């Protein structure tokens, strides 16, 4: 495996039991993501996108195959180790924002650092809130924020522990077009500033177009894997 790759997926399969039947959600998927790049994972509903990033982020274990993130074999790691990796190496942005309703915006941003046992995290959280333009709303509870504002808080939280890789699952799926645009900009700006690897699950064409690479899934299989050339493009169909 290349040392430039932050994420390597090899012959990954995932199946679920549904009554007496076995549902094959992912079938023999292999790819590698280069550090510092962005990748959009696209495909119709039910094609296995969310399951794939869940496995890549150590939220789910594969039925077969191997996943390596930053040199750690996630498919073999203990729950303890997975928790540590999720906390320190991975950032998440969700479609439904997933803010803790009982915490203020500032506190929501601080949570990942606090779980890591860090102290004096308030300044970093404030700075992040400032970067997403919500410093003046830091004491607001999520229910007092609009959808776009909630997603900004979630983005700030995702960058709090300076992750190596960021997983975003339909980050604009619950937002209107105008808000989506600003969120997309924000994600990519922060991503380039922090040199974070970004993996997006999306149906949003604008978001897809901004990614360095587009992986398409169909019925649990890799349908295509397109990397945009920085100067000269290269394509490989799966």
């Amino acid at each position: 495996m290349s040392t430039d790759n932050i994420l390597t997926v090899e012959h990954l399969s995932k199946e679920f039991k549904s009554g007496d039947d076995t549902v094959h959600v992912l079938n023999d998927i292999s790819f590698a993501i280069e550090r510092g790049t962005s990748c959009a994972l696209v495909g119709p509903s039910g094609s296995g996108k969310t399951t794939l990033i869940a496995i890549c982020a150590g939220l789910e274990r594969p039925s077969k195959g191997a996943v390596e993130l930053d040199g750690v074999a996630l498919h073999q790691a203990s729950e303890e180790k997975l928790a540590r990796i999720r906390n320190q190496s991975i950032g998440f942005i969700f479609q439904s924002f997933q803010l803790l309703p009982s915490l203020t915006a500032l506190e929501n941003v601080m949570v990942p650092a606090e779980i890591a046992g860090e102290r004096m995290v308030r300044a970093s959280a404030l700075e992040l809130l400032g970067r997403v333009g919500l410093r003046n709303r830091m004491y607001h509870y999520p229910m007092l924020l609009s959808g776009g504002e909630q997603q900004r808080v979630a983005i700030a939280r995702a960058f709090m522990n300076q992750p190596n890789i960021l997983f975003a699952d339909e980050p604009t799926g619950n937002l209107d077009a105008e808000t989506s645009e600003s969120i997309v900009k924000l994600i990519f700006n922060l991503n380039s500033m922090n040199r974070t690897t970004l993996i997006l699950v999306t149906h949003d064409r604008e978001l897809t177009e901004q990614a360095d690479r587009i992986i398409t899934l169909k019925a649990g299989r890799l349908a295509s894997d397109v990397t945009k050339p920085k100067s000269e493009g290269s394509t490989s169909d799966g």
Partner: protein
Amino acid sequence: MITFWKPWVWRMAYRDSRRGLPRLLLSMSSVVLAVALVVLAYSFRENLLASIQAQSKSLLGADLALDSREPFSKDDEQLFHTLGGDQSKQVGFTSMATFPASGDSRLVQVRAISGQFPYYGALETTPPLSLEVFHLSANALVDENVLLQFNAKVGDVVKLGNQEFRILGSLRKIPGETLAFSLISPRIYIPLAYLERTQLIQPGSVVRYRVFFKFATGTQVERMVKAIAPQLQRLQLDADTVSKRTASIAANMENLSRFLRLAVFVAVLLAGVGVASVTYVYAKDKAQAAALLRCIGARPRETVSVYLLQLLFLTVVCAAAGVGIGVWAQSYLPALLKDFLPVAPVIEISPLGIVAGVVVGMTTAFLFALLPLVSLRRISPLMALRSSYDEEPRARDPLVLSIVLLIVMLVLAFASATLGSWRQGLVFTGAVLVVFFALAILARVGTLLVRQVAPRFLSFPWRQGLANLHRPSNQTTAVMLAIGLGTFLLVALHGVQDMLLRQVDRRVGQDEPNLVLFDVQNEQRQAIGALMERLEISRHAEVPVVTMRLAAIKGRRVEEIRADETSKIPSWALRREYRSTYRGRLTGTEKLIKGDWVATADERTQPIAVSVEKGIAETLGVDVGDPLQFEIQGVPIDTRVANLREVDWQRVQPNFFVVFPEGVLEKAPQFYALVGRAPSSQASAQLQRAVLERFPNVSAIDLSLILSTLNSVLDRVAGAMRFVAWFTLLTGFTVLASAVLGSRGHRVRESILLRTLGAARGQIFTAIVAEYVFTGAIAACAGAILGILAGWGLSYYFFGTAIAIAPLPVLAIITAVTATTVLAGALGCLGVIRRPALEALRAEA
């Protein structure tokens, strides 16, 4: 499984608790009640036992009391003289008391006293008693219950035998005796100097002679009693010392306290169910947040710890409030149980009570909260990714099973420690589990049945109300269990009381005797017979009664057995006067269970074959063939157990421990018991008045006296137990309140949806009322069914037959419980309907 040492866990717990925790605090109010009850029960025990110790001398009223079943002999008097000190004498026996003003009479316990007794404590009377005045003339102190019963008052006259006494005071409390005892055997005190004039002590009368001593301060009474033990043995005197009396009363009070602690523990378990139910909803609400925490790197045990910390904090707050309420309420408990207490407990703050409340309450709350919370550690972080995430079915959580097992073990340990026996603890735990499971199953089955049958003819709001029982997070089963348990206790209590009275009433059938005249002398038989005939009272039997004492069992002298500390035969069985009869056949209330019936015998061919009642045979440790020696007025008579009988003691007729064959006792000193059937209670009262006028030594018991005594005793007992039942029901309603609060979010969403679909507020309100009508009615019916079954079980166990319980009071209990449930539920939901749809929509968005 738990990680409390990470600072972020504490911070997260604190931050997350700022919103919603006050509501959760209200939901946990059952813990407040549970802790208060435990503090109350344990403090009561501590205070009571401390008061018994502090007032120990007043429990006996003297330093020492010596008892005899015979009038004191010269030797006895010599011993008393040697012992010295200040002395008072008391002669006690049962007799009829008549109130000439009304002509009413009843059986009472007469106590004729001399001297300054009680030396410690006082006979509490209204007006306050002056012993000097009391002993001056023919005065009487009469139990206040008797005065109330016959509408008599201080200054009236009461007649005992041939002597009239002026009622000097109404007797409220006797040191060391409970008020409940006075219901069964009301007491009348008279001066000993006037006893002779009553002429009530006749041959065969059962009389207890007592002498009370007060010694100089510092006298070692226990040592003194030990020193004179051989003399006491020889003179057949029984010694009662302060420590002996204190130990015996403390043991009785410990039993009362045990009952109270166990009853309270049931309420604590119910509160535990309430906590589990509230926490279940809480854990469901927090599942998304827990999944997110897992997503961003929190470990499973840290996630559980965040929410467990919050619940622990709530439990501490609830425990503190419970301690406050328990300490405040403890001064009211003695008033509630005053009929059963021999002393008025001095109420002080009991540290043990507080510790017990906090430990029992918090351990219960913690373990029951842990049950649903541990599931959070298995929450998949994927839930944060997809709200519709369906977890693959998992095997049963072994940790949950371990906690359940731990709870059962702790219940068993608590019950065993309280009852002082593993076996009894096991029975208690088993019974609690059976009742809890049976109620839960009955409630579940009831709900399903109603859901199957009712929708066909119900309007929309009622169908909606019924469907609401199956709403997620509704905690229907927990609420029904809580309300059902309270109803169960109320119905079972009512059932037992009703059943006992009806059993007694029913046993005295159309042709059964309902009146017994005791202590009828041979020369009085004919005249009383004529009186009965004149009043059309049928005479069923004339039963001869011969009083005798046990002298030896299986060749061993009674004195020797009494001196043997390893003997398991209780002292009362050895010392008592056996009132025996002789006849050639079994009566309708008896059944031969072992050996052969011997109808006649010759007094010269001893041992005489006698019939012994099964229970007393077990107490004395004898079986068919064993020898027993009796003494009749000092004359020994050797007998052998020929058979064992089972006796139905519940009939209104004289029954006997020992029955001799004909041909042996005919010439012994004897009196008679006349058994008859009065056509009405008026005829019975008329006969008693006429008999007492001419033969004051004769005592009478009739069915109305038995029923009224039984009823008043049961009323008092049920009163105290009903307190526990109401508290259980109150705990049930706190669980209901928790459920209402817990499901508020669902209700608001549901209300919005229904209103969006065009439902009027009235329809939504009707649906809410319908939901609680179904909840209350199904729970109350489940509780009532179980209560009736328990009543039947007890009836069958005690009487051998099951009897139907009167349906109207049961229906009244069901209606009252349902109405209260509707009221509590509907009130809790008022805000849901009042809230404007738009505001609710925004808040929910």
